[in-house]
């Protein structure tokens, strides 16, 4: 067991990937000598050279598009998109090309590209640096989407993403990059399933499903609720596509109440998808409607008001209060 931050855990995961897979390579803007704007690739170019850690031109479509070509030639590219709001110049390549290549080639071609995207708000940044666009990608068949919430998952999930033969987007909770935790690098981590949700806190009265940056928030809310005598179970979704509905269903059949929280706007979001599926699967177990907690239907607001926008402990507690009124 080693203690490290999420950023360091991803760095170590990438180092392990580059060491273990001669065909793997990293590409992105400023990921070389600078080590990326969040230093996630710090030191890797010195260790593996410019053929394996590629500082690219400033062009997101070019990054994803050339990664597809490298994958067609047998390479395992891991792309870094500098910020969530800058993925959109590459959106066409991701959704029309990367997601469909295996399907449209009748299964003859595989494009095991990994795309890392730091996402989410709460860092007091300027426009386009705090967004949560995961639902836009989750709606696209052919992609897989995962998001770690702690250093151990961060270390292993990046390696599992590279090992997966499908394209995988890894959404990294940027405001938690400095969150420290234990990492078991000796574990047989590659054999773990990155697409499975984890129950991170047991409870009997209500279930809160969260992912990425909101996992610590939901745990704090559950602890606060405990003081009011409410036993809240917290599920870390970990995978946004596919979603592990079995784990959520089992939890809801026990608790009877479900709250889904994410930073992304609730409209058309992951919470709505979970609400619909669980309504079908566990209708007779539900004591209350599924409640969503999320961002509002507006462009991500300016930093000075993001506290009012982002789901926090009180917003989750308010949702818990509501679910217990039924």
């Amino acid at each position: 067991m080693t203690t490290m931050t999420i950023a360091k855990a991803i760095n170590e995961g990438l180092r392990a990937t580059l060491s273990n897979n001669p065909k793997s390579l990293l590409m992105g803007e400023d990921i070389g000598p600078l080590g990326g704007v969040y230093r996630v690739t710090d030191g890797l170019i010195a260790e593996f050279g410019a053929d394996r850690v590629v500082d690219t031109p400033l062009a997101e479509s070019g990054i994803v598009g050339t990664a597809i070509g490298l994958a067609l030639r047998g390479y395992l590219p891991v792309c870094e998109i500098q910020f969530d709001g800058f993925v959109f110049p590459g959106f066409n390549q991701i959704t029309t090309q990367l997601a469909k290549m295996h399907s449209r080639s009748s299964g003859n071609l595989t494009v095991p590209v990994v795309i890392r995207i730091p996402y989410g708000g709460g860092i007091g940044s300027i426009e386009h640096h705090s967004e949560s666009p995961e639902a836009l990608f989750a709606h696209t068949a052919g992609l897989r989407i995962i998001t770690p919430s702690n250093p151990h998952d961060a270390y292993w999930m990046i390696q599992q993403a590279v090992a997966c033969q499908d394209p995988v987007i890894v959404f990294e909770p940027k405001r938690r990059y400095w969150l420290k935790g234990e990492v078991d690098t000796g574990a047989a981590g590659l054999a773990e399933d990155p697409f499975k949700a984890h129950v991170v806190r047991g409870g009997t009265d209500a279930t809160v499903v969260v992912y990425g940056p909101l996992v610590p928030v939901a745990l704090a809310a559950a602890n606060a609720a405990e003081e009011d005598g409410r036993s809240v179970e917290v599920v870390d979704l970990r995978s946004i596509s596919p979603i592990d509905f079995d784990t959520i269903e089992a939890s809801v059949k026990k608790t009877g109440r479900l709250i889904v929280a994410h930073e992304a706007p609730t409209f058309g979001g992951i919470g709505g998808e979970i609400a619909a599926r669980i309504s079908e699967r566990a209708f007779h177990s539900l004591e209350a409607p599924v409640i969503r907690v999320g961002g509002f239907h507006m462009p991500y607001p300016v930093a000075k008001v993001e506290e009012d926008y982002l789901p926090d402990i009180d917003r989750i507690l308010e949702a818990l209060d509501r679910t217990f009124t039924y």
Partner: protein
Amino acid sequence: MGATHLPSTEFDGTGLDDQLEAEAEAALGEPAAEMVQLLGPDGTLGTDSVFSEYAQRLDAEKLRGFYADMAAIRRFDQEATALQRQGQLALWVPLTGQEAAQIGSGRASQPQDYIFPTYREHGVALTRNVDLAELLRQFRGISNGGWNPKDTNFHLYTLVLAAQTPHAVGYAMGIQRDQRLAEANGLAESGTAEPKAAVMVYFGDGASSEGDVHESMVFASSYNAPVVFFCQNNHWAISVPTAVQTRIPLSNRAKGYGFPGIRVDGNDVIAVHAVTEWALEHARQGNGPVLIEAFTYRVGAHTTADDPTKYRESSEEALWRAKDPLERLEKYLRSEGMADDAFFEQVTADGNELAAYIRKSTYESDAPDIRTAFANTYVEAHPLVAEELAWFEDYSAGFAGEDAAEGAGN
């Protein structure tokens, strides 16, 4: 007639090209791109200080082969158009007029090279030994591809314009890494290394405006990637003339990225072959990318759903028909005594045989099954796909009795 509301320059044919050339020269302060031409429309062979050498390597058999390829793909084009008219294909994308650009460039590639087409490169597909019946599967609505690119190093058609250009550069970056790995492992010295390869990517004058072309050329230049950008300027992006995409010869754009750009007469199969052979070898040898602009013309419609009479005059088409790539090679082959009536009769007979094969294969092609779409969405097992497939099977099973009853009733 229907296009009189448009500026007259749109319909001056080569006149517009001349006008643009003059404008470009004025803007650039130097002569715009010269066009490499070896075989003129009258069927006589000219000279070029660089590329004549390549033409001289072509013997009579090779030249007859070029003609046979161009005639075959034109006959295929006619047959596919007919199949679309009969309702056998949902859509067809004709290539007539662009045979020399495609056969000349495709025949210059080597098996180890990898080709990324757009969606009109039927002639290039022929040179890569793609089964042309398989190529029609996409247009019949039974596949989104139709062939396995690994068999021929000819990638699937890409319909999102220019999206394949960064793929080509990335593939070329992979070739570079393969070569460096081989050198590091001492394979190059031991003679067991793979032959040097390059990538060629096709796009058109319309797609040249897409941002992906720009990003690709930046990447290719930055990394000195072994890639040839082959732009077929066929003068029309559906209904919009090249003048809306560019005010300078497209080949001149290469200069801005720092690599060679060559404009070649796209209706001259000998020149196209020479220029492409040079460019691919340039790339294979590690000298970086090349842009080729093949100056040609889409004589037919954009697709079978298009109506060129709404945006261009037939007089313009006539001007270009006079530069027909097949006619000029036929003149040359006959004048040089390289081919006689018997050869051309055989080419026609072979074309009809190809057409019959295409017809038969299309009629007999298998109906697709949506289960293959379930199977191919992901490589690895996926719970949502499995759940939806199980539902679909269950739902479909509910109709089994009805089908049997209907069958019995009939």
